[in-house]
């Protein structure tokens, strides 16, 4: 059963996901001007960059929630897309299992759904909470349910928009581990937006850095360590973290944090 499912995902997405000269603007604000990007299947692509540079817009374009002004997104036709939002977005009137069931009702027959819910809840450590409603769960538990929802849905593309942003360090690192376990069993193409350097080097196979809007790709770094072998403090990862940092915070910034032109990083 499991093998067949993975085959299905693989056939869903054999070629790259490509953005071809994509333009996007919100009124006056030009978010993307002729953006070209390639995402290879089977890896986690981390996107970093200043606030407001269009990272969420990129995910919305890939998910088909937002059409580009011009240009095209190729390789997503017929694909199922999983999305992990910044906030959990659970239905407050449905229990944990009800929320998981919602997204796979159309996909699997009843008995299969039960099994899948059982095993995913086991993996995220929420088996005893299956009948709880979201308001009775902590923020970290809600985001775990949301993580379970993103993985129980057989999406061949997985989009993550700073899903761990609101959580404390300890919780964040344990969820990084949960993510890693879940992802290794499915290996979907994943686009992961984050501001957190540790998340980036622990999870990213490829780390892409955006400039301010209109966003250009200013850096692209490959992770030399395999997903299974990454841990915080490993020298290659510290090295990588430093490189990413240098891309994100340019060294030639004037003293006073760039206030000379009265613009803060992230201002539009």
């Amino acid at each position, binding site marked *: 059963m499991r093998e067949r499912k993975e085959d299905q995902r693989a056939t869903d997405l054999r070629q790259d996901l490509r953005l071809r000269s994509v333009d996007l603007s919100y009124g006056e604000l030009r978010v993307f001007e002729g953006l070209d990007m390639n995402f290879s299947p089977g890896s986690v692509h981390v996107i970093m960059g200043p606030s407001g540079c269009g990272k969420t817009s990129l995910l919305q374009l890939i998910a088909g929630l937002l059409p580009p002004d011009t240009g095209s997104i190729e390789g997503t036709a017929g694909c199922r897309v999983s999305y992990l939002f910044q906030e959990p977005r659970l239905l407050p009137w*449905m229990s944990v299992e009800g929320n998981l069931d919602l997204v796979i009702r159309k996909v699997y027959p009843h008995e299969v759904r039960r099994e899948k819910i059982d095993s995913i809840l086991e993996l995220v450590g929420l088996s005893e909470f299956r009948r709880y409603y979201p308001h009775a769960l902590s923020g970290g538990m809600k985001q775990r349910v949301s993580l379970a929802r993103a993985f129980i849905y057989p999406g061949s593309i997985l989009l993550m928009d700073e899903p761990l942003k609101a959580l404390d360090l300890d919780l964040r690192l344990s969820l990084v581990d949960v993510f890693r376990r879940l992802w290794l069993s499915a290996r979907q193409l994943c686009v992961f937006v984050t501001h957190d350097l540790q998340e980036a080097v622990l999870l990213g196979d490829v780390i892409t850095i955006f400039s301010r809007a209109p966003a250009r790709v200013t850096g692209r770094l490959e992770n030399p360590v395999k997903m299974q072998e990454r841990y915080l403090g490993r020298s290659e990862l510290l090295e990588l973290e430093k490189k990413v940092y240098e891309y994100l915070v340019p060294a030639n910034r004037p003293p006073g944090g760039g206030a000379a032109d009265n613009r803060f990083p992230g201002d539009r």
Partner: protein
Amino acid sequence: MTGFTTGLKSSLYTLIGAAVLFAVWKFAAFLIGAEILLPAPERVAAALFDLVTASDFRRAVGATVIRGISGFSLSAVLGLFVGVVCGLSPVVLRIFRPLLAVIRSTPVMSVIILALIWFSTDSVPVFVSFLTAFPIITGNVIEGVGRTDSRLLEMARVFQVSPRDILIRIHLPSLFPYFLAGMRTALGITWKVVVAAEVLSQPDQAVGTGLQIARMQLETADVFAWTAVAVLLSFVTEFLFEHLTSRASWLNPDKQSMRQVRRDA
């Protein structure tokens, strides 16, 4: 302060309020000294007792209750349906908006008079209560559909949840508090318009008919007694409604938003 003493204190104040009301009434009746204008409370109480013990009282109240409940239920069901369709489709909303606006602003008396021309005496109150409750419930449901969390809808879109599941599992639960608030408001005026319609249409068995007969016979104490019956009817149904709907609160664990809705309505 414990909940018990707080409750005791607030019901004490309610008792004081009621006592003042009766005292003023009694004093006014004494001053006026004409029972045909303002009968004393004990005269009304006696009239009420006679009324309640009379053989056809139960049938009259029963018939009025059935009329009110039919009109109200009809508008709840249709209001939910039309409200959902209008809420989901801007085109249908534009089509229905003038109709709803006209119904909402039509004087109750015009509706009653037209109903008298069009329908049999028994169904006039049903029609009138339906027509007054319908736009209120529909309006609330439309509002509820509009207030559905767009982030949940976006989530459902990404995960390709079927339109049927989006309706049943996202729209309906989130508009439910608005639907309840609409029904609560509508229930408050249902008995008023039902009795008004009965006064004019004069069905055989009706609270409104009793009221009208009492007026024609210049039995002011009876007018007061029938009025008391209508007031009690309203109290009882509102109490039952609160009781029944508080059990449905599992549909919306967020009670805070429910209170908010009630205040808005």
